C-alpha cells in the first residue's frame, strides 16, 4: 500500500491544514490534531455510498441555484469521470465537493464572511438575553450537540425568522446586529471558539467522554461548554425534547430501531414516546402516527427474516420474500435520503434555509405514500402467514381486487413476482411435461410410487389448495391434462418426440411482468396459450395412440370378440366347443380350448383381422363357473384392470345368454327331427305337445332377451361410444366415454347391484332351460329307445312270418305288452315333470316380469312389453295385471 504517490492520511491531512490555514506545519499543529481526531472518530460514513445518488443531489443543488447549464456541464464531466474509472471512491469525493459547495449568490458575501459568522453567533446570544426566560423549552443553546440545527428553531417563530433572515440575507440586518453589538464585541473571539467547539463536540459523536481528550485548544472550549449546558438542562426540571430530537429518533424508529425517546412498547405493541418526556399533545400524536411506519416495517421485516432462511418455504415463498425485500429496499432508500437530508443540515448547520429542514409534519406528508405501501404489505404479510406455493399466490391475488389504483398496482407488481415461479412451473409442465416442484408448491402433484401402468389414472393429481385463484378449475384441469399427456407419451408410449415439435406454439421465456399480464388478462393470452397447448398435445397423443397403437381398432376388437359382435366367429366357436362344454369343467384343459379357439379364428372372418389383435385373443378358464370360460383380449394399459373385469362380467353374461339360445336351438332341432319318428307313438303326443309349448315359450323369451341385449343395449351404447371417441379431444374424453359405455352396458345387462334380483330370476330362467334340455333329452332317449325296441319287435315278427313261423310267441307278446305298458306308465311321469317345469318356469318368468315393470329403466319396461306382448302372463298373474294397470294409468296421466 505504501506506494510513493500514496502518502499516509496523516501526512496528507497535515498538508491540507497547512494549505488552508496558510501556515507552517508547526503553527497548524493544533488544527491538525483537531482534524485527525474528527476524522478518526467519524470513521464510517452515515450516508449511502452511492455515486449516482450523490451526483443526482449535486444536479439538484445546481438546479436549485438556477444553474441549469452548469448542471448539464456537471453531468458531462461526471460521465467522463465515470468512464475513466480510475478512482475508487468517486462517491466520496463528489460528496465532499457537494458539501463544500457554496451558492454563488452568496459569493458577494464572501468578503464579509466575518459578518455572517458574527451574525450567526448573534441570535443565540440574543436568545440568551431577552427571550431566554420566556421560552426555556425551545431554547437551542441548552443542547450542545444541536445548537446549529435550523430545524430546532422552527419552534419559536419570531427569533428563528430573524436569525434565518440574518443568515441568508445579503447583509446582516441591523436589528439583529445592533442590540447585541456591545455585548458581543468584547467576547468575539471567545464566542467564535465556542461555536467551533460546540460543532466539534457534535462531530465527535455526542456521547463521547470529552474529558480525557488530550488536546488543549479547541477541545478545552468544548469541555467548558458542555457542563454548563448540562447544568442548564437540569435546571428546567423534566426531561425535555425538541422536535429535532424527535425527528432523529423517528428516523431510527422508521428502521425499527428504538430511538432515545421513542421506544417499542411491548405491552401495547406499538412505538411510544417515553411517558416521562414532556411533550405537547400534537407532537406526541404526530410522533405516534409516524411511528406506525416503524411498526409496519418491523412486521414485514420479521416475516421476511423468518422466511428467507426457511428452505422448505419454496420458490413462490422466496419470490414473495424477494418482492417484499424490494419494497423494503425502496423504503430504505427513502430513509437514507431523509437521513442524508438531516446530515446535510447538521453539516451545513445554519447555512441551509428553513424550507429544506425536516419537521415531523413534513415527515408525515412525505411518508404518507410509503405508509400506505407498507400498510398494504403488512396486510399482505398477515394474510399470507402460513401459506405457501399456489395458495400464497391466491392470497396475494385476493388483494389485487381493490379499488385503489395505487394499491392495486403495488399488489399486482408483487403478484407478478410471486406468480413468476408458478408460471415457470406451469410452462415447464405444459411444454416439457417436467415437474420440478421440490417444495410441493405447484397445483399438479405427482406420486412417485405409481408405476407407469397406472400413470394416466393415478400418477398425477391436482392439489386443489395450491391452485392460484387466478386460474380457474377448468384451466387447472387442462394444465394437468397437458402435462399428463406429455408424460404419458414419454413414459408409456416411449415417444421421444421433443415437445416443441408437438406444440407449434412458440414457447417464450416469460418475464415477471409478462406473468402479471398473463394472469390479469386471463380471457385472452393465458387462456389461449393453455388452450393451444392442450389442443396440440391431446391431438398429438391421440394421433400416436391411433396410428401407432391402433386404439380404435382395439376398441372395435373388444366389441367384436368380448361383446360377441362377430357373429360367425362366436357361432363357430360355440359349435366347436359344444362337446367340450357339456363335460364338467374339471376335465377341460386350457390347451384344448386354445386349439379350438385358433381353429375358430382360422375358419371364420376373424382371420382377416389385424394379427396384432388376434395375438391378444386368449381363452381363460374360470374353474368356479361350471362350463363357462372366458375369452379375453388383453389390453393397453389405458383400460385398467377394473375395466377388464367389467368386460369379463359382461362377456360372461352375454356368453350365457348366447349359450341358452344355442341350447334352445338344439332343443328345437330335436323337436323337428323327432317329431316324425315319434308320430307312431300317439301316446307321446300329449307330452310332446307340452314340451313344444314350453320350448317355444322359452325360445320367445330368449329371443326377446337377445334382441334387447343386442339392439337396445350393445348397439346403442356402442354407437354412442363410437361417436364420442371420434369427437374426443383428449384421452380423458375417450376414457370417460368408454367408462360411460361400460357402465350403461353393465346396468342394462342387469349386472349392477340394483338389478341383482332381476339377474337372479334370469339365471333361474336359464337354469330352467337347462333343466328342460335335460328332461327333454331323457324323454327323447326313453322314447327313442322304446321306438327302437318296438321297431325291432315288429321287424322280428315280420322276419319270422317270412320264415313261416309264428310271428310272436305268447311269452314274447306278453313281454312286449308289459314293456309298452311300463313305457306308457312312464309317460304321465314325464308329463308331470314337464308340468312342474312349466309351472316353475312360468312362475319365474312372472316374477321376472313383475320386477321388470317396476324397474326404473325405460328400456327394461319396454322389454316387459315385448316379453308379454299377448298378455299371456298378465292374464295369469294378478300382481302383474295390477301393476300393468297402474302403469297404464300413470302413462295416460303423463
Amino acid at each position, binding site marked *: 500500500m505504501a506506494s510513493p*504517490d*500514496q*502518502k499516509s*492520511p496523516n501526512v*496528507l*491531512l497535515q498538508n*491540507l*491544514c497547512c*494549505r*488552508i*490555514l*496558510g501556515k507552517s506545519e508547526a503553527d497548524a499543529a493544533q*488544527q491538525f490534531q*483537531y482534524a485527525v481526531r*474528527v*476524522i478518526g472518530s*467519524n*470513521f*464510517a*460514513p*452515515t*450516508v449511502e455510498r452511492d455515486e449516482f445518488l450523490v451526483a443526482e443531489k*449535486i444536479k439538484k*443543488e*445546481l438546479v436549485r441555484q438556477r*444553474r441549469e447549464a*452548469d448542471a448539464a*456541464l456537471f453531468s458531462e*464531466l*461526471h460521465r*467522463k*469521470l465515470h468512464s*475513466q474509472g*480510475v*478512482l*475508487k*471512491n468517486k462517491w*466520496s*469525493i463528489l*460528496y*465532499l*465537493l457537494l*458539501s*463544500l*459547495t*457554496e*451558492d454563488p449568490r452568496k*459569493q458577494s458575501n464572501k468578503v464579509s*464572511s*466575518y459578518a455572517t*459568522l458574527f451574525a450567526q453567533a448573534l441570535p443565540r446570544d440574543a436568545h440568551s438575553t431577552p427571550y431566554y426566560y420566556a421560552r426555556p423549552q425551545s431554547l437551542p443553546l441548552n443542547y450542545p450537540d444541536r445548537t446549529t440545527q435550523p430545524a430546532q428553531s422552527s419552534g419559536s417563530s419570531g427569533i428563528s425568522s430573524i436569525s434565518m433572515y440574518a443568515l441568508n440575507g445579503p447583509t446582516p440586518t441591523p436589528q439583529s446586529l445592533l442590540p447585541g453589538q456591545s455585548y458581543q464585541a468584547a467576547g*468575539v*473571539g471567545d464566542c*467564535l*471558539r465556542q461555536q*467551533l467547539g460546540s*460543532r*466539534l463536540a457534535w*462531530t465527535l459523536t455526542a456521547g463521547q467522554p470529552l474529558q480525557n481528550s488530550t488536546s488543549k485548544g479547541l477541545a478545552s472550549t468544548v469541555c467548558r461548554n458542555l457542563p454548563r449546558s448540562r447544568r442548564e438542562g437540569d435546571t428546567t426540571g423534566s426531561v425535555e425534547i425538541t422536535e429535532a430530537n424527535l425527528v432523529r429518533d423517528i428516523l431510527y424508529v422508521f428502521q425499527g430501531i428504538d430511538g432515545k425517546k421513542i421506544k417499542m412498547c411491548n405491552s401495547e405493541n406499538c412505538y411510544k414516546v417515553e411517558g416521562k418526556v414532556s411533550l405537547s399533545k400534537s407532537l406526541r400524536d404526530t410522533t405516534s402516527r409516524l411511528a406506525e411506519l416503524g411498526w409496519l416495517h418491523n412486521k414485514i421485516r420479521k416475516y421476511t427474516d423468518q422466511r428467507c432462511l426457511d428452505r422448505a418455504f419454496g420458490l413462490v415463498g422466496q419470490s414473495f420474500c424477494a418482492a417484499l425485500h424490494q419494497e423494503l429496499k425502496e423504503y430504505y432508500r427513502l430513509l437514507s435520503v431523509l437521513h442524508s437530508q438531516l446530515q446535510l443540515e447538521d*453539516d451545513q448547520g445554519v447555512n441551509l434555509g428553513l424550507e429544506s429542514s425536516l419537521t415531523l409534519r413534513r415527515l408525515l406528508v412525505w411518508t404518507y405514500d410509503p405508509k400506505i405501501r407498507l400498510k398494504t404489505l403488512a396486510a399482505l404479510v398477515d394474510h399470507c402467514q402460513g401459506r405457501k406455493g399456489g395458495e400464497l399466490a391466491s392470497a396475494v391475488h385476493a388483494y389485487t381486487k381493490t379499488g385503489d389504483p395505487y394499491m392495486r398496482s403495488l399488489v399486482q407488481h408483487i403478484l407478478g413476482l410471486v406468480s413468476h415461479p408458478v408460471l415457470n412451473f406451469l410452462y415447464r409442465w405444459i411444454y416439457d411435461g417436467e415437474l420440478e416442484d421440490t417444495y410441493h408448491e405447484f397445483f399438479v402433484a405427482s406420486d412417485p410410487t405409481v408405476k407407469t401402468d397406472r400413470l394416466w389414472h393415478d400418477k398425477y393429481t391436482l392439489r386443489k389448495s395450491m391452485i392460484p385463484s387466478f386460474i380457474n378449475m377448468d384451466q387447472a384441469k387442462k394444465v394437468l391434462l397437458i402435462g399428463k399427456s406429455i408424460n404419458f407419451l414419454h413414459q408409456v408410449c416411449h415417444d421421444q418426440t421433443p415437445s416443441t415439435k408437438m406444440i407449434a406454439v412458440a414457447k417464450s421465456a416469460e418475464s415477471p411482468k409478462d406473468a402479471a399480464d398473463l394472469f390479469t388478462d386471463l380471457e385472452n393470452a393465458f387462456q389461449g396459450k393453455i388452450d393451444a397447448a392442450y389442443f396440440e398435445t391431446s391431438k398429438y397423443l391421440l394421433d400416436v395412440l391411433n396410428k401407432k397403437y391402433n386404439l380404435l381398432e382395439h376398441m372395435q376388437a373388444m366389441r367384436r370378440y368380448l361383446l360377441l359382435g362377430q357373429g360367425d366367429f362366436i357361432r363357430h366357436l360355440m359349435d366347436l366347443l359344444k362337446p367340450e362344454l357339456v363335460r364338467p369343467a374339471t376335465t377341460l384343459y386350457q390347451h384344448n380350448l386354445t386349439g379350438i379357439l385358433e381353429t375358430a379364428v382360422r375358419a371364420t372372418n376373424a382371420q382377416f383381422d389385424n394379427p396384432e389383435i388376434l395375438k391378444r385373443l386368449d381363452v381363460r378358464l374360470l374353474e368356479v363357473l361350471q362350463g363357462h370360460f372366458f375369452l379375453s383380449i388383453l389390453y393397453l394399459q389405458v383400460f385398467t384392470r377394473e375395466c377388464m373385469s367389467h368386460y369379463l362380467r359382461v362377456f360372461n353374461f352375454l356368453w350365457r345368454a348366447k349359450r341358452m339360445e344355442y341350447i334352445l336351438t338344439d332343443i328345437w332341432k330335436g323337436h323337428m327331427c323327432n317329431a316324425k319318428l315319434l308320430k307312431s307313438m300317439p301316446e307321446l303326443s300329449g307330452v310332446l305337445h307340452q314340451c313344444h309349448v314350453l320350448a317355444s315359450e322359452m325360445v320367445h323369451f330368449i329371443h326377446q332377451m337377445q334382441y334387447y341385449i343386442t339392439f337396445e343395449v350393445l348397439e346403442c351404447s356402442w354407437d354412442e361410444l363410437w361417436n364420442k371417441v371420434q369427437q374426443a379431444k383428449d384421452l380423458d374424453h375417450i376414457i370417460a366415454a368408454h367408462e360411460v359405455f361400460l357402465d350403461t352396458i353393465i346396468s342394462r345387462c342387469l349386472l349392477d347391484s340394483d338389478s341383482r334380483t332381476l339377474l337372479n330370476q334370469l339365471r333361474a330362467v336359464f337354469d330352467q332351460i337347462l333343466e328342460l334340455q335335460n328332461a327333454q333329452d331323457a324323454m327323447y332317449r326313453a322314447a327313442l329307445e322304446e321306438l327302437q325296441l318296438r321297431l325291432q319287435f315288429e321287424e322280428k315278427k315280420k322276419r319270422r312270418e317270412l320264415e313261416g313261423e309264428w310271428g310272436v310267441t305268447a311269452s314274447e307278446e306278453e313281454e312286449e305288452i308289459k314293456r309298452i305298458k311300463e313305457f306308457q306308465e312312464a309317460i304321465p311321469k314325464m308329463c308331470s315333470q314337464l308340468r312342474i317345469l312349466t309351472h316353475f318356469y312360468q312362475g319365474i318368468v312372472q316374477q321376472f316380469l313383475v320386477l321388470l315393470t317396476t324397474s326404473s329403466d325405460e328400456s327394461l319396461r319396454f322389454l316387459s312389453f315385448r316379453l308379454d306382448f299377448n298378455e299371456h302372463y298378465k292374464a295369469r298373474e294378478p300382481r302383474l295385471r295390477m301393476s300393468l294397470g297402474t302403469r297404464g294409468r300413470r302413462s295416460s296421466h303423463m
Partner: protein
Amino acid sequence: HRAYFGAAHRKARVLRNVGSVRLLFEISRILNTGLDMETLSICVRLCEQGINPEALSSVIKELRKATEALKAAENMTT
C-alpha cells in the same frame, strides 16, 4: 520484469489520476467549493484512502472558519 511493469503501471495510473483530478477540479469549480488544485488533489487522495467525506468536509469547513475568524480577529485587534 515485474518491477519494471509495476513501475510503468503505476506511472500510467498516476497520469490517469491527473486527468481525473482535472475533471474533478472542473466539477469543484462549478460547485464553487473554493478548493484549489493542490488542496483538491490532497482531498482526492484522502478520499481514495477511504476517509469519511463527511468528516473531511466538516474539517475543511472548520479550518476555513478558523482561518477567517483568526484573520477577522487580527483585523479587529489591529
